[in-house]
């Protein structure tokens, strides 16, 4: 039993610590990329203490940020619900931490005993993933409600509406992969993509795009960052949080991004598959993380490109566009998997899905026309 406990710790501690430090790196990465997109330099001032290293590209910045967060005063509004106000940041951190263990990450030092303990080996890993991430909504609502602030409550309600709506296309697009792999075991899904990654099929590509868009909304990333829209509702549900509680929200948000990107890599991008993995199995972990960071780069890139959606556009997009498309994709995938002539799947599948997407976007276009004026004569 001691061995089991030790094995558990050997898996859980590196995951938690490793992803937390990757979080620090990602905040730096995001600030740097956004700065370069906007023709700025980004953080570059913090130097290593007691050394003559001047810049290091500002890589020490996250440490300084963390220190600042720790040193800040913890402010709780007078009328806030003290208990729930305290619990919300903790609850926002727990689900992403839990689902990180569900990723089929092959730790290079893992023994057979450790591997058996990894939650990715569970029969219902993907279902558990969705179940646990849905708890995040509760944390957001709890924070928004407990703060007793109208901006917080608005942000919380926006978050709940958005996360509940986008969870459906998210799950439906993942269902396609479950259908193709014949199970919800994360390791089996990676195994099923040995011959061909699912993204290289028409239904897989469509499902990946839907999944990616929906995961942007699930993690409140731009252009779906309405719950924390700074220009509209200050910071949404964490307006009333300061110091380390705010840092916990921040950490939870980034861990959720890691988790959902990791799931996308598992479902569509072949998990840890990549060149030279057969020769050096330790590379599998590196490839997995590299794919996660490729997705995160696209997320940051999108944040630097797109403006925020309006609330009605947000809801319409989920219910009128993504949902019908992901339902159609289920049928396309079923047909493609049972098709007698596999070469037909690309032209027919792409045509049907693209045609449906165009038709859907046409039918819901707002009837806005440029306004006309009669000039003063």
């Amino acid at each position, binding site marked *: *039993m001691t061995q089991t406990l030790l094995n558990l710790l050997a898996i859980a501690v590196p995951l938690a610590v490793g992803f937390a430090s990757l979080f620090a790196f990602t905040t730096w990465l995001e600030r740097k990329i956004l700065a370069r997109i906007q023709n700025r330099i980004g953080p570059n001032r913090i130097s290593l203490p007691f050394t003559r290293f001047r810049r290091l590209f500002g890589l020490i910045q996250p440490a300084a940020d963390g220190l600042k967060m720790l040193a800040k005063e913890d402010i709780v509004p007078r009328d806030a*619900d003290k208990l*729930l106000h305290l619990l919300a940041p903790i609850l926002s951190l727990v689900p992403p931490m839990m689902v990180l263990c569900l990723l089929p990450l092959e730790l290079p030092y893992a023994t057979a005993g450790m591997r058996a303990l990894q939650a990715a080996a*569970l*029969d*219902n890993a993907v*279902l*558990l993933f*969705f*179940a*646990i991430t*849905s*708890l995040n*909504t*509760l944390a957001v*609502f*709890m924070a928004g*409600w407990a703060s*007793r602030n109208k901006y917080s*409550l608005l942000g919380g*309600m926006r978050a*709940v509406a958005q996360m*509940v709506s986008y*969870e459906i296309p998210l799950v439906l697009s993942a269902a396609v992969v479950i259908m193709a792999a014949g*199970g*919800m075991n994360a390791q089996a899904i990676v195994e099923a993509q040995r011959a061909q990654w699912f993204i290289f099929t028409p239904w897989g590509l469509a499902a990946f795009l839907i999944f990616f868009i929906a995961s942007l909304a699930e993690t409140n990333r731009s252009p779906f960052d309405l719950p924390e829209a700074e220009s509209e509702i200050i910071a949404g549900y964490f307006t009333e949080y300061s110091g380390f509680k705010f840092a916990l929200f921040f950490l939870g948000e980034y861990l959720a991004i890691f988790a959902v990107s990791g799931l996308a890599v598992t479902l569509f991008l072949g998990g840890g598959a990549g060149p030279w993995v057969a020769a050096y199995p330790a590379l599998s972990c590196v490839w997995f993380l590299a794919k996660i960071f490729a997705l995160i780069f696209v997320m940051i890139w999108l944040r630097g490109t797109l403006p925020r959606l309006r609330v*009605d556009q947000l809801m319409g997009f989920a219910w009128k566009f993504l949902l019908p498309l992901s339902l159609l994709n289920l049928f396309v995938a079923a047909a493609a998997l049972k098709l007698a002539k596999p070469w037909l799947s690309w032209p027919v599948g792409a045509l049907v899905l693209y045609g449906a997407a165009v038709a859907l976007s046409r039918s819901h276009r*707002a*009837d*806005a026309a440029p*306004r*006309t*004026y009669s000039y003063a004569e």
Partner: protein
Amino acid sequence: MIEGVAFYILSTVAVLGALLAVSRRNLVHGVFALLLFFAALSGLFVMLMADYVAAVQVLVYVGAVGILQLFAIMLTEHVTGDDLRRLGARGWFWGLMLAVALPVVLLLPPLLNGEPPVPPAAPQSTARQLGSQLMEHYVVPLEVLALLLTGALIGAVAVAHGPEKDPPGKDRPA
């Protein structure tokens, strides 16, 4: 040993959550306590080797039903949660009777038989089994349920839709 400790912790949390859910006057607190109960229940399902049911318990009850209740509360006047009024219901007596009667009824057959029920061996792949059962043996009830839910959905839309309003985008004069 671990199983025993886990069972008692989970059961205590579940009972506490249920008690808090019915006793708290603050509606939002009540819902969160109920969600705690649901979460503990899903832990108990895990202990019964029913991980699929546990996941569904979290997904449906904590994720969907709880959110729905919170949403419903937010649409009422009890948004702040400090409304201290209470319904003058005198149902506590019958509720208590029901709470006592239920375990008795459930435990009666094994007690009469004189031997505790033997749990069946935990199945290997619960999701696959459930799926094939639903699609083969129980396909007609499943379809009937689906039809019923669709009807309810359409009815809800019809009730909520109300009279026609002006299309959006025309609220500002040109």
